[in-house]
């Protein structure tokens, strides 16, 4: 029933109305048929009964003489007259006086009671069944009134001398009934069919304008333009059509205006993007020259004063570059030009590297820095490494900038995890100057800083946090701040990631080799960092603030396994020489010391296996331990060094300044360098000489880097496989993608540092 109703609701108006009318006609027809049939049948029955009574009365009248005379012949004559009526089956004439049946024709119907004793007062239906009626009538002799009766005041004399019975069959009645029903049905059916066709035509004609209007609306909804409903019909319909047409006029007019506005906006956006791209390239190119040259000069022998000037110039240049980058980034984000990637990255390592980078830049401040990573949180996630680093850099940079003493730590906590996704909370916590409560709401507004004094004291454009907020939002996350003046600030990111469920096999390997960790640290932050390291490796640990108490712990020696001793922050480490000797003699110990190279020196290098610069980085320690156990680390370094001298690099760069900068960096790093002015020259040189790697500028005359790369990849097999690293001032994701699409292997944005260059080159050596 529900399905039928649903089908009905979804049918067209014409069909619905037709169906409703058909149902109405059917109901009316059936009602009329039934009613009329019943009525006609009732009339037929009534008539048949009246006829029966009339026949019986007539027989009674005609039988009076026969009963008076007692004449069977006379009775027979009367009966024969009655037998001419259809349906008369049995007739009998009863003599009241003689108390017998004077004459009878036909058989008595069994089942119909015979009441021969009583004589009715008038003609009645004495009995009936489904097939017969039995009527009976008295035979009364009436002495009718004449003059003498009037005079005597007497009523007519009635004498009952007998009765007659007539049995009449209902066959004819049944035939009549069937005829009535069949006739009614036939007429009904005919009327129904006729009505159906007539109504259908009328309904179709009446509802056609609706269909036309509906079609026009549907087509308009699909986007067709210029459609108007042109219908004739009822006034309401024509009004609807007129209103629809007017509405379409307005809509199309508005649409045209919107299209024009959209096109104008798109054009403006395109011009803006173009401007941003051009400006980015135009600014970066000379900046590359400036910073590159400063970098080269810095490697020369300079006086302290000169080094100081260079440092200031470099810093200013970097600041200018970061300022430009920030403005351009903000602009791109505002116009929606930035897209975040999803590439597998080691989040822990990324955070530790950034901490290392900033700590190396600020080792003199003696700020404690560490990364604490929730052991339940996965290392490998899918994310935009560049943008994440941008955010992390900004936040750590700010934390360090506003913290003179104490610590700057990063805490990663797992908030939520399911099959494919995790939500991580990454908190950048410092013990700096803090942020006032009134300023917190404006913290992420562009170009805003707490007050003028902050700007004077700490500098900055006020774009960094605005960019961070937008980037985090693009990643689907949130950023918030909790801060107290003179206590410190927590910058809290909450970001969802898809994660890669990789087992940390290397940690398991360490567990096979190492039995226990003994941690020595006087500093609370470092203590936590070391304990976190032990946890990351899945190792049990014991902490002490002094190496002197080591023996008190009576740690068990396990054969075939090492004791890992991690020492932090011991100023006068020489005091513990005997303890260290004890360790060496008693246990198979690996002793690693974390130190600040600016404030501390490497000490007791014969007893300590190796030193690591702070902050504590579990990933680096892990790599170093693995190298210790499974590779010869020292041999590896020398191998790297010899490779540099043999490597021949083709530098494809049209700008003379950039040529000089890059060549100088490469030569200082120990590489052989050959220069091509454009892509065509590069191709020609490659055809005749062999190179190990090509550094390719993208924007060049004659043949740009993209075309040159494609041409190189088309060369014979050996030459085509040369690693090609892009050098480009166009740092957008699209530009980077384009580089990889044409066949380049890596990307170094301009301006680049020596370290960046070397790091990228090392990667390709490692790969080869």
């Amino acid at each position: 029933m529900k399905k039928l109703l649903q089908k009905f609701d979804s049918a067209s108006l014409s069909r619905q109305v037709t169906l409703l009318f058909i149902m109405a006609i059917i109901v009316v027809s059936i009602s009329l048929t039934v009613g009329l049939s019943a009525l006609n049948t009732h009339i037929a029955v009534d008539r048949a009964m009246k006829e029966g009574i009339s026949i019986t009365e007539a027989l009674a009248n005609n039988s009076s003489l026969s009963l008076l005379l007692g004449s069977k012949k006379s009775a027979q004559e009367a009966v024969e007259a009655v037998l001419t009526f259809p349906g008369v089956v049995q007739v009998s004439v009863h003599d009241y006086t003689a108390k017998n049946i004077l004459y009878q024709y036909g058989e008595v119907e069994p089942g119909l009671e015979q009441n021969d004793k009583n004589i009715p007062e008038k003609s009645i239906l004495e009995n009936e069944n489904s097939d017969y009626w039995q009527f009976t009538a008295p035979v009364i002799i009436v002495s009718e009134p004449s003059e003498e009766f009037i005079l005597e005041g007497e009523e007519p004399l009635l004498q009952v001398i007998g009765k007659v019975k007539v049995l009449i069959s209902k066959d004819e009645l049944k035939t009549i009934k069937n005829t009535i029903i069949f006739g009614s049905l036939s007429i009904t059916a005919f009327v129904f069919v006729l009505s159906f066709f007539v109504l259908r035509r009328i309904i179709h004609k009446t509802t056609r304008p609706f269909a036309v209007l509906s079609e026009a609306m549907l087509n308009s909804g699909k986007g067709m333009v210029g459609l108007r409903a042109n219908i004739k019909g009822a006034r309401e319909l024509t009004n609807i059509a007129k209103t629809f047409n007017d509405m379409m006029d307005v809509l199309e007019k508005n649409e045209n205006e919107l299209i024009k506005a959209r096109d104008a906006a798109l054009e403006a956006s395109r011009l803006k993007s173009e401007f941003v791209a051009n400006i980015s390239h135009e600014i970066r190119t000379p900046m590359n020259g400036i910073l590159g040259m400063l970098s080269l000069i810095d490697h020369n022998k300079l006086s302290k004063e000169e080094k100081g000037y260079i440092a200031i110039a470099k810093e200013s240049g970097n600041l200018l570059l970061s300022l430009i980058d920030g403005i351009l980034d903000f602009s791109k984000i505002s116009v929606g030009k930035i897209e975040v990637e999803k590439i597998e990255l080691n989040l822990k390592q990324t955070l530790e590297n950034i901490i290392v980078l900033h700590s190396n830049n600020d080792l003199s401040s003696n700020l404690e820095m560490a990364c604490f990573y929730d052991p339940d949180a996965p290392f490998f996630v899918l994310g935009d490494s560049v943008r994440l680093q941008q955010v992390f850099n900004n936040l750590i940079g700010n934390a360090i900038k506003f913290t003179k003493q104490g610590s700057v730590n990063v805490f990663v906590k797992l908030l939520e995890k399911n099959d494919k996704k995790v939500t991580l909370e990454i908190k950048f916590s410092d013990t700096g100057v803090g942020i006032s409560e009134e300023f917190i709401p404006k913290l992420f507004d562009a170009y805003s800083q707490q007050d003028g004094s902050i700007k004077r004291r700490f500098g900055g454009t006020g774009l960094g946090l605005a960019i961070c907020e937008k980037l985090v939002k693009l990643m689907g996350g949130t950023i918030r701040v909790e801060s107290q003046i003179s206590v410190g600030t927590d910058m809290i990111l909450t970001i969802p990631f898809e994660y890669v469920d990789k087992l940390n096999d290397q940690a398991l390997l360490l567990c096979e080799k190492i039995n226990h960790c003994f941690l020595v640290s006087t500093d609370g932050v470092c203590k936590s960092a070391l304990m976190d390291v032990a946890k990351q490796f899945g190792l049990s640990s014991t902490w002490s603030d002094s190496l002197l108490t080591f023996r008190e712990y009576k740690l068990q020696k396990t054969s075939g396994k090492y004791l890992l001793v991690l020492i932090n922050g011991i100023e006068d480490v020489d005091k513990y020489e005997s303890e260290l000797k004890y360790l060496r003699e008693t246990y198979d110990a690996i002793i690693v010391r974390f130190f600040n190279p600016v404030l501390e020196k490497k000490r007791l290098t014969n007893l300590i296996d190796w030193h690591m610069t702070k902050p504590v980085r579990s990933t680096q320690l892990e790599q170093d331990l693995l190298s210790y156990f499974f590779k010869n680390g020292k041999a590896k370094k020398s191998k790297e060094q010899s490779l540099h001298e043999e490597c021949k690099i083709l530098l494809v760069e049209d700008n003379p300044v950039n040529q000089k900068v890059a060549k100088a960096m490469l030569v200082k790093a120990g590489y052989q360098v050959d220069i091509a002015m454009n892509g065509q020259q590069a191709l020609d040189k490659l055809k005749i000489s062999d190179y190990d790697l090509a550094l390719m500028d993208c924007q060049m005359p004659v043949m740009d880097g993209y075309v040159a790369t494609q041409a190189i990849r088309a060369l014979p097999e050996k030459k085509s496989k040369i690693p090609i690293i892009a050098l480009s001032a166009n740092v957008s994701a699209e530009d980077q993608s384009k580089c990889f699409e044409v066949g380049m292997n890596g990307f170094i944005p301009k301006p680049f540092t020596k370290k960046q260059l070397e790091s990228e080159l090392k990667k390709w050596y490692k790969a080869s």
Partner: protein
Amino acid sequence: MQFTYKLVCYPIAFHVLFLSFLLSFSSKVIAFEGNANIVVLYPEVKEPYLKIFNEAIKGLESVSNLSVRAKSIKKKDNVRSIHRFITKEKPKAIVAFGRRSLSMIQGMSYSVPIISAASLSVFKEIDDIVMTVAYVPDPIIMFELLKKIFPEVRKVHVVIKKSNWDWLLKYTADKMRSMSLSLEVHEANSLQESARIYRKLLKEIKVENECLWLPQDRKTIDKKNIIPMILKSAWNKEIVVLSSNLSHVDKGVLFGMYPDNYKMGVYIGNKLKKILSGNEVIEPVQPLRQLKSAINFRTVKHMGLEIKPHELEIFDLKFPKGTR
């Protein structure tokens, strides 16, 4: 002078006294010599039956010295109301037409002579009835007319319930002796008996000299069955049939006689005068002799009867209607 006055007045006074004395003993005579107050009671009926009483009353009124006060007896009337009427009128005699009129004065004693008329039967319950004129045509008059039409007739058959018509049969039988005519009475107590007797009679009757008389007896005759049977046989067999019922003549009976109501009224009026004069009633129960006659010419022609024109003129009604 005084002596002369006495001589003249005294005899006159004596005669007046004497006559008064005589009158006091013969109030009837004195009364008769004025208009006698007669109350006539008759049942309230509709036309054409009302005509019977109206004509009879006219007949009564036409008789001199009778002051007729007629009262129709309505449905609402009862013995008491009629009694009040009669008491108020103080009639010398009462004429009661029909049994209903008689029932209204039954049980009351008015000490005046009562004549019962226009009734089929004799009302024996009232002692003061001095004469009954039954509304039954005198058969003798019918038979006398029969003799003129059908001279060969010797026997008249009649089927009748004797107990109802004993007085009439006796009267008829007595009178018929002198007419060379015999009456054969067939008794029937019901229509069925009557029907069977008629059937047999119609088979056996000798048409040459016998005829059939249909009396006013609803116990033995009915219009719907027996009359048609009789008429059919009579027609087929040319049986002479006469009837005391006018409607039978219309149906095909040869002839019949019916009351002349006016003359009946006159007769009753005259009789009343005689009764009031002190004459004795000789025939306390008598059939109606004030009659008219009707004949069916079609039947006459069918039966081949020869009736002289002057004889035909005596018939008051001729059937079929329009026949002259």
